[in-house]
């Protein structure tokens, strides 16, 4: 859900080439058909986990192709219209409001965002009463978190402004244009390091909601059961591997030659990024599952993404957990 401003376009083209390589590489799996995956963002370090799992699935005969689209909305439209098969995002609104024939089936990551303030102006939540706030976009997770905290602390922001991209908001913090915002883990570390003690994180209760999930057209899932199962098994195994050893990502990146054109400075950020991600527990060993979904209902209802009475919502309306359960039955639950 955040924009990686540092990533170069070169990287994007290289990744597209990778997609092509992936689709042509698996000859023995021709009978299994191919899966076209659409990311709603430009390629970045956070996608490496998925790319590793994809490479591993490929070696088991699954044919994969990855495209990087401009936005999550575009990616979801591509899935709905059948131009791509598997999307990345949390399309709750799309499913609920226009009855899009898609279901989510694997939680890639949980929301992990960090409210941060300039201590020269604010010390705690209460100081933000009557102050301007900056979040990613209307209806986004970042806005929902900040509004939730305002409600819990009984304060009110003077205005909510939308500045898409954690990197952009972090830049504005460093330049002193804004004094309070919410950023992702990567930018939290950056701000704490570059701010030289000027910035402080505000306490946040644990928020259990999906940031990114895999979803697909229901018809596609029925027809490609076997391939999806292989992909899910490799995803679960890769996620568990990363949780055990975050350094696995850069090793596997070298092994599979993933995002080869990534600038060295960005590549150096891979290890710390995954170490942090694991530390903040954004990768679930069991692919989310039912308990993650109930957390989503609550959070996305608050965010305004889901409308109506959440107690009446059923998991089946939004998710298809059968393939994941099948994979977990085989691999065992942790």
């Amino acid at each position, binding site marked *: 859900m955040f924009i990686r401003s540092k990533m170069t376009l070169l990287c994007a083209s290289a990744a597209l080439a990778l997609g092509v390589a992936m689709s042509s590489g698996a000859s023995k799996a021709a009978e299994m058909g191919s899966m076209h995956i659409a990311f709603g963002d430009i390629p970045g370090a956070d996608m490496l986990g998925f790319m590793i799992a994809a490479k591993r699935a490929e070696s088991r005969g699954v044919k994969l192709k990855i495209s990087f689209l401009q936005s999550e909305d575009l990616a979801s*439209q591509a899935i709905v219209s059948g131009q791509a098969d598997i999307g990345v995002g949390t399309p709750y609104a799309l499913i609920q409001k226009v009855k*899009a024939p898609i279901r989510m089936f694997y939680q890639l990551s949980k929301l992990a965002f960090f409210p941060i303030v300039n201590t020269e102006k604010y010390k705690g939540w209460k100081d933000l009463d009557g102050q301007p706030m900056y979040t990613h976009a209307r209806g986004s997770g970042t806005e929902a978190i900040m509004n939730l905290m305002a409600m819990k602390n009984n304060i009110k922001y003077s205005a909510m402004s939308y*500045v*898409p991209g954690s990197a952009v908001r972090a830049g504005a913090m460093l330049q002193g244009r804004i004094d309070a915002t919410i950023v992702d883990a990567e930018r939290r570390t950056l701000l704490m390091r570059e701010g030289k003690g000027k910035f402080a994180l505000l306490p946040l209760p644990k928020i259990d909601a999906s940031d990114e999930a895999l979803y697909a057209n229901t018809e596609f899932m029925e027809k490609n059961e076997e391939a999806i199962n292989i992909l899910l098994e490799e995803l679960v195994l890769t996620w568990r591997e990363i949780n055990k050893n975050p350094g696995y990502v850069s090793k596997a990146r070298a092994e599979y030659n993933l995002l080869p054109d990534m600038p060295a400075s960005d590549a150096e950020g891979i290890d710390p990024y995954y170490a942090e991600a694991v530390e903040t527990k954004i990768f679930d060993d069991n692919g989310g599952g039912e308990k993650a979904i109930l957390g989503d209902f609550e959070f996305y209802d608050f965010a305004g993404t889901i409308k109506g009475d959440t107690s009446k919502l059923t998991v089946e309306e939004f998710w298809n957990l059968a393939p994941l359960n099948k994979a977990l039955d085989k691999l065992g639950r942790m």
Partner: protein
Amino acid sequence: MSRTLVDSVYIPPETSSFDTMIIWRTISVLFVFGSWEIAGRIPISIAFPTFFETMTALFEMIMDGRLAHAYFETLKPLLVGVGISAGFGVLIGTSMGLYRSVQWLGEPIFIVMQAAPMAALIPLVTFVYGIGLAAKVCAVVILAAPIIVLNSYKAVTNANVSLIQMCASFQGSRVQQIIRVIIPDASPMIFAGLRLGVAAGFIGVILAELLITPTGIGDLITYHRSVAEYADMYAAIFSIILFAAVTIGLLEKAEIAYFRPERKKKKGS
């Protein structure tokens, strides 16, 4: 000298039945909206609402004040940006047409600006102007100004030589020549440039609201898209198209009323 000597008097062509025009225009509008309704009912995409749903959403947005609030936000950068572009644009363009040195100074800049895909530069505007009002105003100006400048410049350069000579033959000063002949003669093309400039300004402000920070109409579009409320999204898009068309139409009316009395009379007769 008697009036009998006056030769054939100009008779304006009959406004070949006003009613026929109305009928055809209505058919044109009905055709577009009808096709929209049908396309929405098929549906061509789950993200494409029917015309009726869109109008319902538009009505709701008008009634609950969301639209008014959005326009209040969008109009700020639009008005400031178009104001700057129009004021300075006409001034610079006219000066380019009148003075060689200004022409040589300005021509390369504005021709490149007009030819270049300025919309692609909007995200870069944030590096200089940040993410606030200034960036959006700048986006409007970089899209609107070149066309206004170049049209004014060309209009003045192509001002009727015969009229300029006529003015000179009656010992009109340079200032009289500019004010009484060149500018009025150039005004149709200057206004054409202003209309195009305002249209470009609309593009600029919407791009800025989509690409820089979502506010106003851009926010309505992105927000409703992100939460899959497509009828609301199309309602916002429909409203801005309608608003732009009406604004440009009014600009034409203003031009005729204040600068082209002879055309006003022609239309009225």
